[in-house]
């Protein structure tokens, strides 16, 4: 089955700054993929390249088997929700639903109205006067009413309170449960994503650090805790992601290449948040917590 989203060595520069470098990812059909990374890692750039709003500097990108392009067939199948939720502020939600009906051949106005009324969002009020959470729900309802096959969302829940976040993700997951929809959403909030997402794309320093099924990725990583000693054997056999040393103890987060055979170390599973932090912190050194070092650095 061809993946719904595929990129190969995708790169993009803006005014001399590298936004995205050598990115190769795949997202299979029916997944809810979490695009995680620190600010400036390239999340928005990647989503804009997937949606066709921006063009690649180099490399290839394929969505639903074709290049993102200005073409009604493509535009009908791909939805995009930008970070600042751009809507026509003076128009009401009902206006927006009418606009969608005029601009899209496949348009499920009834589902949009039903979703918004069930959330208690007024359809006759100017969208600019709604709260952030309500605007996000309006934008989501509009994007879903288009019945796209791929939905790209840029930090859709960043500015929402916990209840609004939960409601947003619930509606999104339900739309995927209906079938025929693949979602990529970017965020900083790992705990929300862990609940709703089953696929992970981790960006840091404009590069893809991890891309795969979340359960598989977590199973591939382990935390080894043991006495401070020479760890080069482990580091050679497996990929070291992060090492934390005290004078007496070594804590290694590794990506396993096969089983770990070292009785001195106790192995535990890694949670998603811990894993994400480890990869994101690879270049950064955290000051004042004197004993923490980045991968590859030994004190």
């Amino acid at each position, binding site marked *: 089955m061809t993946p719904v989203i595929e990129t190969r060595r995708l790169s993009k520069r803006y005014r001399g700054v590298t936004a995205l470098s050598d990115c190769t990812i795949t997202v299979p059909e029916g997944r809810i993929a979490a695009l995680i990374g620190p600010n400036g890692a390239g999340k928005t750039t990647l989503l*804009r390249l997937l*949606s066709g*709003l*921006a*063009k690649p500097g180099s490399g290839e990108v394929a969505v639903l088997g074709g290049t993102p392009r*200005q*073409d*009604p067939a493509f*535009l*009908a199948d*791909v*939805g*995009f929700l*930008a970070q*600042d939720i*751009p*809507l*026509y*502020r003076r*128009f009401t939600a009902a*206006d927006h639903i009418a*606009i*969608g009906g*005029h*601009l*899209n*051949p*496949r348009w499920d106005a009834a589902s949009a109205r039903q979703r918004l009324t069930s959330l208690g969002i007024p359809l006759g009020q100017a969208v600019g006067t709604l709260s952030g959470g309500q605007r996000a729900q309006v934008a989501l309802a509009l994007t879903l009413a*288009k019945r796209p096959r791929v939905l790209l969302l840029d930090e859709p829940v960043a500015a929402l309170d916990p209840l609004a976040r939960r409601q947003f993700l619930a509606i999104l997951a339900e739309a995927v449960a209906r079938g025929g929809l693949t979602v990529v959403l970017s965020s900083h909030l790992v705990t929300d994503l862990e609940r709703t997402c089953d696929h992970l794309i981790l960006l840091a320093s404009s590069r893809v650090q991890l891309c795969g099924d979340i359960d598989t990725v977590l199973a591939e990583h382990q935390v080894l805790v043991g006495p401070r000693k020479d760890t080069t054997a482990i580091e050679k056999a497996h990929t070291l992601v992060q090492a934390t040393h005290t004078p007496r103890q070594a804590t290694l987060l590794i990506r396993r290449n096969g089983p770990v055979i070292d009785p001195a170390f106790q192995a535990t599973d890694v949670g998603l948040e811990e894993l994400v932090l480890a990869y994101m912190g690879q270049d950064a050194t955290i000051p004042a917590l004197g004993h923490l070092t980045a991968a590859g650095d030994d004190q």
Partner: protein
Amino acid sequence: MTWLAWRQHRTHAIVGAAALAALAVLLLITGLQMASQYHSAIAACTAAHRCGNLASTLFLGSHAVGFLVIMTLGVPALLGVFWGAPLVAQELETGTSQFAWMQTITRKHWLTVKAGWILLAAAAWAGAVSALVTWWSGPDNALQLDAFKPGRFDITGIVPVGYALFATALGIAAGAVTRRTVPALAVTLAGFIAARFMITELVRPHYMTAITTTGTSPQVPPGSWQLAQGMIGPGGKVLPTDGSTCTSGCVPHGYRAFITYQPASRYWAFQGIETALFVVLAAALIAVTAIVVLRRDA
């Protein structure tokens, strides 16, 4: 998309229609008054065989309305600034362009419909104002014979339509390039004024080769546009004044008076050429807009 464009610019259309209606009422009332005023004056002076001085003794209409009519020079600039500049710029600024471009319409369709309707509306609006002003100016032009003069030429006939298209296109292009409404406004205003000034002063006189007539007391056909006058001597030396620099008169030194002018019969040809010029500029600006909007990253 037409429906969306209408909803977005409904207020502009309503305000424009209201302003046009108000102007129409004002000009119709005063225009009819001026026409009857003129015809009575003509009838009176013809009977007394004293129509020669009419132009300097009769003042038609009121100063206020006359001033307002001259102010219609600014109509294209207003259209460019209020209708043209925000068209693309505001959507780029607020991000609603991203919303629109991810619906099932191409950027090309979006731009064509929005720009198409606004240009049409601007041309129609300016055309209506020009028609009213041209009709209103009828008696005054017959009296003063100054339709060809800059200032009058620019507010009558078909050139206002060309100016309006140019100003609106300039606004749209400025908005597309700067991506922000306020800079677009500034560029549109400055650009329009500069273009109009330069073309009127430097290009318009040369649409067709001017005619120069010389003699002791040269005459030009009534209603012509005088470009230059003075004294021309042997060898082509020109004294711009009426010969007051010559101490004992210039004629004995071989100087003759001259007037360079464009005859009144060329009025419509000039209207046509200038309109075409501005329409071509407008088209070029729209082409720039299309390239910027369609090719650039959103």
